[in-house]
């Protein structure tokens, strides 16, 4: 598969990272990703990522759990094999609420976790390119994709001037696990691409 070149800048403080993200984006670079040791709130907006729809998927899974429970129980107890429990109605909806609720939760939770793993391509034996070992410890690692126009040395200097304490150029194999970009809103599309 094709290899791509990335410029990597490491920051040790999210307070430095945010303005750097803004600067890099206004300068017209395409940030591939920022790897952080914990969920930095607001970073997704700063990067121009759209909101995740994972919760919508969870809702749909939940509804399908409700439908499965109600559908199968009513078919079983009222249609397929109606049993007489002390003369009570066959269609005993109130008694089915607990199981319906449990299946709603179960379907929603299992479905969401599987969807999460699929979207993020997380699975036990998946191998990914890790740009920096300390990205899961104390480093905020900004990764910028190089195009033919990009001058890696200039970009490294630019990152360093914006507070990156380590800069680096890495080549990573392009693959589906690198993830698709979210639709970039290109808010600064018409700005110049030359770095000061």
């Amino acid at each position, binding site marked *: 598969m094709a290899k791509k070149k990335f410029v990597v800048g490491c920051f*040790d403080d999210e*307070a430095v990272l*945010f*303005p750097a993200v803004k600067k890099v984006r206004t300068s017209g670079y395409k940030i591939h*990703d*920022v*790897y*952080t*040791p*914990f*969920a*930095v709130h*607001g*970073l*997704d907006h700063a*990067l121009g*990522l759209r909101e*995740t729809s*994972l*919760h919508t998927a*969870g809702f749909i899974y939940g509804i399908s759990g409700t439908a499965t429970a109600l559908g199968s*129980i009513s078919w*079983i*107890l009222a249609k*397929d*094999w109606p049993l007489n*429990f002390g003369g*009570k109605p066959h269609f*005993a909806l109130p*008694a*089915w609420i*607990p*199981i319906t*609720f*449990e*299946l709603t*939760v*179960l379907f*929603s*939770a*299992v479905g*969401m*976790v599987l969807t*999460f*793993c699929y979207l*993020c391509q*997380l*699975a*036990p*034996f*998946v*191998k*990914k390119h*890790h740009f920096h070992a300390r*990205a*899961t*410890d*104390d480093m905020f690692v900004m990764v910028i994709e190089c195009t033919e126009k990009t001058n890696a040395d200039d970009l490294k200097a630019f990152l360093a001037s914006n507070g990156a304490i380590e800069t680096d150029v890495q080549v990573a194999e392009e693959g589906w*696990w690198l*993830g698709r970009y979210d639709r970039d809103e290109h808010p600064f599309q018409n700005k110049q691409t030359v770095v000061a």
Partner: protein
Amino acid sequence: MHLKYESQLREPLVNGDKNYHQVTEDIIRPIEAKPSRLWYVGFYIAVALLLFGVYSIYRDVTYGIGQWNLNKTVGWGWDITNFVWWVGIGHAGTLISAILLLFRQGWRTGVNRAAEAMTIFAVMCAGQFPIWHMGRVWMAFFVLPYPNTRGPLWVNFNSPLLWDVFAISTYFTVSLLFWYSGLIPDLATVRDRAFTKLRKRLYGIASFGWTGSTKHWQRHESLSLVLAGLSTPLVLSVHTIVSFDFATSVIPGWHTTIFPPYFVAGAIFSGFAMVQTLMVIIRKVFQMEDYITIGHIEAMNKVIVLTGSIVGIAYLTELFMGWYSQNKYEGYTFWYSRAYLFSPYGWSYWGMMACNVLSPQIFWFRKMRRNLFVTFFMSIIVNIGMWFERFVIIVTSLYRDYLPSSWSVYYSPTIWEIGFYAGTFGLFFTCFFLFAKYMPVIAVAEIKYVLKTSGENYKGKMDQLEEKGVEQFAHDHAH
């Protein structure tokens, strides 16, 4: 950059002068070190108990549940008592991780991971009891509703016992998913620090290839929030349904409408007590006093005194209704079989009252809430009391039923019933020892997330805000 501010009145959640790297070091250290002698001693004791439990179950399966002292009248004894007890304990983890997340209680970050693990192990223990109580356990799959050649003979969806099957298995699955999805980033932290190839490989498999990408974090946050939202009603539903096992019957002492909230409060009560027992040990053994602070212990003790008092109100309400209903069967159960000290099981009722209602009142005093010895001692007392509660509910309602000729002789367990219970302790602690050795007992990423708002040294710097006023502070710190 968001301006985060937390009042000085709130106790710091992380003590000492920490930075992100120090947090990683402190929490991962026990995983990378060799286990201490104490760990081995504890682990082998747990495994020995587990083996004894396995042998007890072997006897139960081979000779039938006649190995237990259950009889025609007391058909539920230690087994269902222990089942409800373990399920109750299994409520604290999800309560801490889900309900406290929705309520934005920052202190949950220090204790949630270990509490969730405890939940999963406790539910595993709980599940053993109904399964082996089936007697012919090889027929256990009959509880699953699938098209079969026996009619098809479907399960009874109107039965609380079947609701229980769905509730417990859903609870176990969702708790496991919630726990593990939270663990993935922390396991990645362990992987990236690994110093041997084997460690790197094993933690690499376990961490699912987590990179820490911003998009992944965004989804992870969404997932955690929705799972918390789902788990909150789930955790309430599970013990509600367990209480339905009793409340929908027509046995005096069980047939009461207050059972669901009463059971849920009791579950939280005993669950927090078990969390306290484990936390007091963990913070000491792993030197995590900076992360599981006295403030955390105090917060949990507040929950204990609250839920203990709710349970106390429920006991008194039951006694009142036993008299007020003027139902002689109810009256007999509540005022003779339970509350009369010299009735055959009166001792268990008053043991329960002393442990669950009277003794937790000590936590109205701040000094006691913040005293580790008192906390540890009380956490044990509460769990003994909550075991008594389930025993009281089950046995005192059963041993004298509507038909005096079948009133049973005094029910006491055989060694194999006790062995089974001891075996679940073995299972629980074997799992917990392995967890504490091989996985981060504190949520590393979540601690880092609250570090700059609630860490001691960062909070100190926020003093300026209170002096300067918000606008000036924001101006000075604007980027």
